[in-house]
C-alpha cells in the first residue's frame, strides 16, 4: 500500500489540504443536524472519515478534467468548487441548488465544472466515465476522467465491463475505489471472493495500486502520479483507497453489522487527525492555524445554510421543465 511521499511539503499547500478536509467535515456534520430538523430529506449519505480521498484526488486535477461520483458526493462537489451555498440549497430542494432542487443529496451536478453527478445506482457511473474519456480521446484532448465508486460497486457487472472497455480502447479513466470495507451492511469479505480490488484490475491489464485513503498526502501523490502518466499514455488506471466511513451508511442504518470498537479504532487514524498530527509535529501548522481553518469552515457552512434557508422554491408550474433539453446541442 502506498503511503505519503518523501517530497517536502509546503506550509501553504498543507494548510489548503487541511482546509478542504475541514470544509467537508463541518459541512457533513451540519447536514446530519439539518436532517434531524427535517430541512434535508430523502436519502443522506455522509462522507465523514473519507475526506482525504476526495481532497487528495481532486486537488491535482485541471478544470477541464471530468468527474463522476456516487451518492456519497457532497465532499467531491465542494472540493471541485461548486459553491457550498448551491450544494446546501440543493439539499434543501431549492431552486438555487446546483440541480435546481430536482436531484437532492444524491444528485449534485455542475456541468461548467465538469462534475457529472451524483449517481445513486451503484456502479452506474463507471460506464459514463468510460464514455467521457472516449470523448476526450476522440477530440484529442489531454483531459482525464476521474470516476469514484465504492467497494460494493466492484461486484457489479458494470464495474467489470467498464474496466475492460477502458483498457481495450486505451481510455484515460482514473477509477478510484473508495474502499470503506462495507457496502451498506455487507462487509467486503462477505461480498468478494477476492478482496484485493487491485487484483481485479490486473485481470483487465489495468495498472492498479492500493493507497492509504486516510492519508491525504498519500492520496494526492498517488493521484498526481497516475494522472501525469495518464496524460502521456492515455491508459486507464485504478487506485484503491483504503478508507472508512465514520457514520452510518445513511440516516436509516442502525449499524448492527459492525462494532463500536472497530469504528473507534478507525477514528483514531482519521484523515483530519492524521494530517493534523503530522503538520503540528513538523511545525507547518500551529494550533491557531487549525482553529482559524475550522472557524472559517463553520462560517462558510453558516452562510450556506442561510443562503439555502432564504433561497426560493422552484415554481410548481416548472415541474415538467428539463425533461428534454431546452438548448440546442
Amino acid at each position, binding site marked *: 500500500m502506498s503511503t505519503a511521499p518523501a517530497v517536502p511539503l509546503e506550509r501553504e499547500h498543507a494548510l489548503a489540504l487541511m482546509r478542504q478536509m475541514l470544509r467537508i467535515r463541518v459541512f457533513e456534520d451540519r447536514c446530519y443536524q439539518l436532517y434531524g430538523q427535517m430541512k434535508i430529506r430523502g436519502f443522506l449519505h455522509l462522507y465523514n472519515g473519507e475526506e482525504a480521498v476526495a481532497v487528495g484526488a481532486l486537488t491535482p486535477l485541471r478544470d477541464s478534467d471530468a468527474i463522476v461520483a456516487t451518492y456519497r458526493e457532497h465532499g467531491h462537489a465542494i472540493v471541485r468548487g461548486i459553491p457550498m451555498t448551491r450544494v446546501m440549497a440543493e439539499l434543501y430542494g431549492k431552486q438555487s441548488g446546483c440541480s435546481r432542487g430536482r436531484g437532492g443529496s444524491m444528485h449534485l451536478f455542475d456541468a461548467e465544472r465538469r462534475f457529472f453527478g451524483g449517481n445513486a445506482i451503484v456502479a452506474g457511473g463507471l460506464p459514463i466515465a468510460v464514455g467521457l474519456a472516449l470523448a476526450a480521446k476522440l477530440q484529442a484532448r489531454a483531459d482525464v476522467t476521474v470516476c469514484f465508486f465504492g467497494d460494493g460497486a466492484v461486484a457489479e457487472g458494470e464495474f467489470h465491463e467498464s474496466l475492460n472497455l477502458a483498457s481495450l480502447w486505451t481510455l484515460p479513466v482514473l477509477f478510484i475505489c473508495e474502499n470503506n470495507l462495507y457496502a*451498506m451492511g455487507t462487509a467486503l469479505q462477505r461480498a468478494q471472493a477476492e478482496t484485493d480490488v487491485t487484483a481485479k484490475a490486473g485481470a483487465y491489464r489495468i495498472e492498479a495500486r492500493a493507497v492509504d485513503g486516510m492519508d491525504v498526502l498519500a492520496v494526492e501523490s498517488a493521484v498526481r502520479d497516475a494522472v501525469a502518466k495518464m496524460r502521456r499514455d492515455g491508459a486507464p488506471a485504478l487506485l484503491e483507497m483504503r478508507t472508512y466511513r465514520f457514520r452510518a451508511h445513511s440516516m436509516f442504518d442502525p449499524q448492527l453489522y459492525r462494532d463500536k470498537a472497530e469504528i473507534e479504532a478507525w477514528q483514531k487514524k482519521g484523515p483530519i487527525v492524521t494530517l493534523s498530527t503530522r503538520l503540528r509535529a513538523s511545525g507547518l501548522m500551529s494550533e491557531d492555524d487549525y482553529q482559524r481553518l475550522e472557524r472559517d469552515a463553520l462560517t462558510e457552512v453558516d452562510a450556506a445554510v442561510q443562503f439555502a434557508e432564504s433561497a426560493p422554491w422552484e415554481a410548481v408550474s416548472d415541474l415538467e421543465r428539463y425533461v428534454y433539453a431546452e438548448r440546442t446541442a
Partner: protein
Amino acid sequence: MPNVPPEPQARIAYRDAVREALREALEADPRVFLMGEDVGRYGGSYAVSKGLLEEFGPERIRDTPLSESAFVGAGIGAALGGMRPIVEIMTVNFSLLALDQIVNNAATLSHMSGGQLNVPLVIRLATGAGRQLAAQHSHSLEGWYAHIPGLRIAVPATLEDARFMLGAALACPDPVLLFEHLYLYNLEGTLLPGVRQVDLDHAAIRRPGRDVTLITYGWSLYKCLDAAETLARESIEAEVIDLRTLRPLDEATFIESVRRTRRAVVIDEGWRSGSLSAEIISRIIEQAFYDLDAPPARVCTAEVPVPYAKHLEDAALPSAERIVTVVRAVLAGGGSD
C-alpha cells in the same frame, strides 16, 4: 363450552406481515430460501427480514453481493433445479440491472422450452415514490413489467395481501413479482380475522359505490379511499377497485363495475404514456364503450423523472385532491387532469 369472546387482533405493521409470510414459508418448505442484498446481517433495507438470519441461518437467508443480474439469474437457476427461491431486489430501481434475467429468462423459459421447464421463482421488490428519494430511487415500474407475458405481477396493498400473497406466489409454478410500495411498510392495522389465504387471480372491491369506479393498486389505493371519503360528503359514491394483480389482469371485475357505475377513473403511480392505465382504459373502451356516460379518465404521475424537492414530488404524484378533481370533472361530463 363457555362462550369465549374472540381474542382481540394484535396490531401489525405491513413490514411485519411480510416477515410473518416469509417465516411461515421458510418453516413450511425446506426448498424455500431468501436471498438478496442486505437481507441477512443488515436485516433488510426496509427491516422486512430482520431476525430471520438468526432464526434460519445463512444458508437460507443469503446475503448477496451487489450483483442483481447474477443473483436474480441464480434464483431462476435454483428454481429450475428444484428449489423455491425468494429473491429480494432491494427496490425496483435496481431490478433494471437484472432486466435481462427477468425478461429473457424467467419470462420465456416455460414457453420457449415447449412447456418442459417452469420457473417457480418469487421476486420481491420495493417500489414507488413519495419519500423524496429523487429520480433514480422513485420508479414505479410494475406496470411496465406487466407488459411481459410469462411473468405474474402482484401488488399487495392491504395487510392481508402483505401477509398471504407470498404464500400464493410460492404455490404458483410461474415467476411472480411482488411489488411492495415503500410507503406501505409502516402501514399498521389488524388482520381481518378468518383470512388465511388469498389468491393471485382476482381484483377486490375495497369500497362499493354506484357513481364512478376508481381502478387502482398499491399505495394509490389509500389515496383513492381518501378521495372516496371526500366525494361521499358531496353525495358522490365512488367504487374503489384494488387490482391486486396487474398480470394477469382481472378485467371481469372492473368491467362489471364500470358497467354499473358507467364511469371510470384509473389511478396509477406509473407514467401514463404506454402504460398499464392505458391498457385498462383500452379494455374498458373495447368491452364497455356503450355503457359509459363519460370518457374514462386517468390520474397518473406527471411525465417527469420524479424530482427530489417535496413540493415538486407532491405535484408530480397522484394525490387524493387530484383524484377528487378528476372525478368531479368526469361526473360533469368529462376530463382527465
